[in-house]
């Protein structure tokens, strides 16, 4: 029998405490304004020519918000995908493979998007 205090000291079964829970909530909160910004950014540029889109990302505010979105979303995505896999993939081997792939997916999307935003906004 573990008392609540004992659980807190040992930080629970995963020894991570409420860190993941908290990080998921924090990124969720950040994602609210950022996702609204993202939808407006994409929709308002449907059919826009290259120069317009490039100029849009040339604005520092746009680049910073987009970077914030990509980072926050990647973290939130990884936590969510992990949660889904842990709930539904039961084979030990398959679970590990799925978790690795989910991490690579979130990290890959995040890095590719980050590099792209930096390249557009720094203009090379």
């Amino acid at each position: 029998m573990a008392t609540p205090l004992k659980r807190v000291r040992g930080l629970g079964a995963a020894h991570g405490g409420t860190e993941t829970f908290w990080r998921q909530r924090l990124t969720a909160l950040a994602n609210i304004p950022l996702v609204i910004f993202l939808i407006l950014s994409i929709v308002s540029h449907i059919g826009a020519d290259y120069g317009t889109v490039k100029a849009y990302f040339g604005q520092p505010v746009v680049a910073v918000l987009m970077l914030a979105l990509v980072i926050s979303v990647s973290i939130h995505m990884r936590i969510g995908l992990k949660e889904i896999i842990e709930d539904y993939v039961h084979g030990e081997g398959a679970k590990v493979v799925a978790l690795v792939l989910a991490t690579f997916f979130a990290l890959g999307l995040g890095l590719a998007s980050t590099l792209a935003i930096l390249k557009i906004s720094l203009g090379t």
Partner: protein
Amino acid sequence: MGKAKLGAERPLSPHLQIYRPMLTMMMSIAHRISGAANAAGFVLLAWWLVAIAAGPEAYAQVANFFASIPGRLLLFLFSWSLIHHMLGGLRHLIWDTGTGLDKTSIEVFAWLTIISSTVLTILLWVAGYALMGSQ
């Protein structure tokens, strides 16, 4: 390593197929599905960003797809999924404070999520179209 013998025939507790589908149950499932859909949808964003970084030729391909009817439909569904997940998440943030967990509230939250996610998505598209060309 006390591994449970997984092959043993044990009675299972009642699962999804036993219960009559309820709105709150459907919304819980929808929250997960929209979350997974959002992850897939972010491939569209990465494609858009990488193409803009790559140059005019690569951008033209994405731009043509985004402007096509299937492209716009996909973007609309993506944005709806994002907003649906956002409002569903907002509901969770309220629940995290320990409030809104009574039967009436969860029903109201479920309906609010469905209605306002649709309305908000349409409003964002209207706003996005209005912003076109103005940067």
